[in-house]
């Protein structure tokens, strides 16, 4: 969440609650709504690292609120983040380890493992289908996230098929 908050602060200084609202507004149902405590903890750490700074703003008949803004170091960190390629998803290797190791130890049969895993993936896919149906067409960001999850799942299934061909 560190970098998301830095990105939002690059746009304009904001206090914690405004950041929470901005995240909710941009990502809609695509992102689990962040909890405000988590945002304050993260802001505190960013401040300690010198990436943001806070000023107290007086409010009439309310306690002061802290408005955060990006420092030069924060700007640099944000630029570095934007410039570097993002780590791709890793192959989910726990299942693969199981697949390779289980038959050796006699714990399970490979074909049974693969079949069970396929059914599991397909049932997740069914969930995603339902989710896509319930998501409003205007919620582009959420729909793209769901589509991304579906494409990853498809790749997992294709890979499972390759394992079945080559290992059985």
């Amino acid at each position: 969440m560190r970098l998301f908050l830095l990105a939002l602060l690059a746009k304009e200084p904001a206090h914690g609650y405004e950041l929470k609202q901005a995240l909710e507004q941009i990502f809609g149902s695509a992102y689990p709504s962040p909890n405000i405590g988590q945002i304050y903890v993260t802001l505190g750490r960013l401040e300690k690292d010198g990436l943001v700074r806070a000023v107290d703003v007086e409010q009439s008949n309310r306690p002061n609120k802290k408005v955060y803004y990006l420092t030069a170091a924060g700007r640099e960190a944000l630029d570095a983040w934007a410039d570097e390629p993002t780590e791709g998803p890793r192959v989910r290797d726990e299942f693969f380890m199981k697949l390779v190791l289980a038959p050796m130890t006699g714990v399970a049969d490979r074909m049974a493992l693969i079949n069970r895993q396929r059914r599991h993936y397909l049932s997740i896919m069914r969930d995603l289908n339902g989710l896509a149906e319930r998501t409003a067409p205007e919620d582009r960001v959420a729909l793209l996230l769901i589509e991304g999850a579906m494409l990853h799942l498809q790749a997992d299934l294709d890979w499972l098929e390759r394992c079945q061909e080559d290992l059985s």
Partner: protein
Amino acid sequence: MRADPVVTTVNLVKIYQNGGVPVPAVRGVDLRVERGEFVAIMGPSGSGKSTLIHMLGGLDPRTSGEIWLDGKRADTLGESAWALLRRKKIGFVFQFFNLVANMTVADNVELPALLAGASPREARERRERLLDALGLTGCADAAPAQLAGGEQQRVALARALANRPSLLLADEPTGNLDSRNTRDVLKLLGEVHRDGQTIIMVTHDARVASLADRVVSLLDGQIVDDGAVAAPRRRPRGTAGDVVELRG
């Protein structure tokens, strides 16, 4: 008495001859599909999916074993009897479309309905509805060759559904589609399924397969798995944000 299964195969075998070398493509398949079921067939390339579904539609003769459709023996039928059967109750979507090249899209789709005895008006209305559901209204007067692969594929699906077949056999009907077109196809298939038509569909597309009642997995011409897709195990009212956790 229970209704007969729509499809039953008993130890179904297909061995092609490739320059004198026998190529076993389907090796002893026992399959039983009940009325109204939606069955997806998955499996690697060369595992025998097309061969199996072609045999079920009488498009490729079996080497040995039995095929029963609606409780009647079908593998012993001759070509013309199969043709009649297809006209009356089977819609077939080929992996490589097989549209009639010198007929318009509209005529391609209307033809099976006309052959099955629909009036020209019924055939036209049904064609209009199907093309509309698949986002193809603008293509009605085009020749198949003028269309993109994904469009031809949807025309092939419309054609297969034109005579309201009680059994739809489809070989990779979404193989050439992007996700928006796949969504249209899924929606139409959902309607077809709800109408009680039986669907047997070969697919690599997990999205399509996940909507089936049952998934049959083939490997080297044999069924290695056959079972229902489990109902969602999470709470029903998730948001897309849950996808993040789902993948975690």
